[in-house]
């Protein structure tokens, strides 16, 4: 990694940390469990690193196998994480929404 790339990466990290702090401090305790589940699914983005390992040019078989396991676990997190988050968020209803449902 050359110094210019490193510095750019550190900038991205610092800005993402700042933004993350601002955005996440506004999440109410009501939604902390879905939040954890959602950030988990989002960090399943490491899937794209796993995909490269599992099938890209220039990687030997052992790397492909490690990549396969990584793709599997990351996909579980993405699919399971988004699915469960949505299932949870669907349950949070306001009083009015409930009344309409009852009708």
């Amino acid at each position, binding site marked *: 990694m050359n110094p210019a790339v490193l510095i750019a990466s550190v900038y991205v990290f610092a800005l993402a940390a700042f933004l993350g702090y601002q955005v996440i401090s506004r999440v109410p305790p009501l939604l902390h469990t879905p939040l954890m589940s959602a950030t988990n699914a*989002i960090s399943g983005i490491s899937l794209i690193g796993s995909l490269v390992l599992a099938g890209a040019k220039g990687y030997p078989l052992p790397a492909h196998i490690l990549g396969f396991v990584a793709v599997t676990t990351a996909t579980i997190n993405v699919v399971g994480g988004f699915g469960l988050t949505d299932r949870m968020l669907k*349950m949070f209803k306001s009083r009015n929404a409930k009344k309409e449902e009852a009708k």
Partner: protein
Amino acid sequence: MNLTSYFMEATYLIASILFIFALKGMSHPETARRGMFMAEGGMFAAIVGTLIGAHIISWVWIIAGLALGSVIGAWMAIWVPMTAMPQRTALSHAFGALAASLVGIGEFVVHGAEMSAVTRGALGFEVMLGSLTTTGSLIACGKLQGVIHGKPIQFRGQNFVNLAIFLGMVGCFAFFCIHPEASAVFYSMLGIAFVFGVMLVIPIGSADMPVVMSLLNSYAGLASAATGFVLGNNVLIIAGTLDGFSGFILSVLMCKAMNRSITNVLFGGFGAVIAEATSNVGGVMREISLDDAAMQLAFANRVVFVPGYGLATAQAQHAVRELAELLEARGVTVKYAIHPVAGRMPGHMNVLLAEANVPYSSLYEMEQINPELPSTDVAVVIGANDVVNPDARDNPNSLIAGMPIIEVDRAKSVIVLKRGQGRGFSGLENPLFFKPCTSMLYGDAKSSLNHLAQAVQHV
């Protein structure tokens, strides 16, 4: 760079922006679902972009992994019950961290020789953090599931042993950064990190799980961010950092809600000192009959339910909602007071009550409900103990001194639903039970609540 690479980078940028919008949506239940759809779109775009732009030549492992992962993930999304949410989340921390760790090992196997010192540093950090989070999360999952005993596992000199393991791990890490050819050191670090993860979580009791869950969340995210540094991939850095900071913020909030520091949770071993926790409270606990309790509730103006983890273990969420609806039909104002550390993970109790069809507008945070408690006629404590223990406020020598509580003892009267006369989960004596305004209703929370509902109907 050719056209497909530009396309791939564009999808990464779009994914990063959509992820941030998704978390912004989480600030309100009304916008949260829409936000998650955006995140899903971003994820999909990034995956398609990678498959097109990353010079993929062998598709077998990729398709097999995606298919297997999707099936298991979908199965989890559909079948995991809400009460098992903490275990599921711990397991997904383990999976996420394992993926990050494996990518690191793979990169080391392939490119280890030609890496710069900085990249090696990021790689070592990624693998170290990823591995210890993997085993740590598996232990947490085992404890939450009840496979491993929930009590803290402790032995003499534990902190010294852990410190030695930690130093060994960091030593290997430092050595690896300086000497890239030493692959044996790299694999030793990997092994030690796995062991350290186990040692880190076994001394922690179930009651401290909300902190541990948040902390592991943070580690898993930071491991992903380190992967981004190794691969020079910005969307990984952004998504990993968001996850890492979210976990960190939650850890701090959970620690504040217990008035403890993170080091105290990790190295304090809360459960071990119970034997010394002498209490000077005494007196008699006043028992109340079902009919009297029902009468009190039915003729009250304001009722506040304070649920704890006991509610979840008794599966009494629906029973409490039914009782609340009967009371509301009689014109009683019903609210629920949720302590930040009620349950086994942040926000756990809110999800359980939402599942039982309690509207979120009835769920109140500790700070919101405390000023209202003096004008509350009946506070009903269900399976909660420490979070309503007035000792935390009044007794500076108490083990939980300074922990913010839901001040039910300020309410006009309190009914405590409790399994038996014994001490609660943490083993601390609770003076609330001996106060004149308090009456105890013994028995299983679910059947007590069902009987109360029947009795209220006949009032």
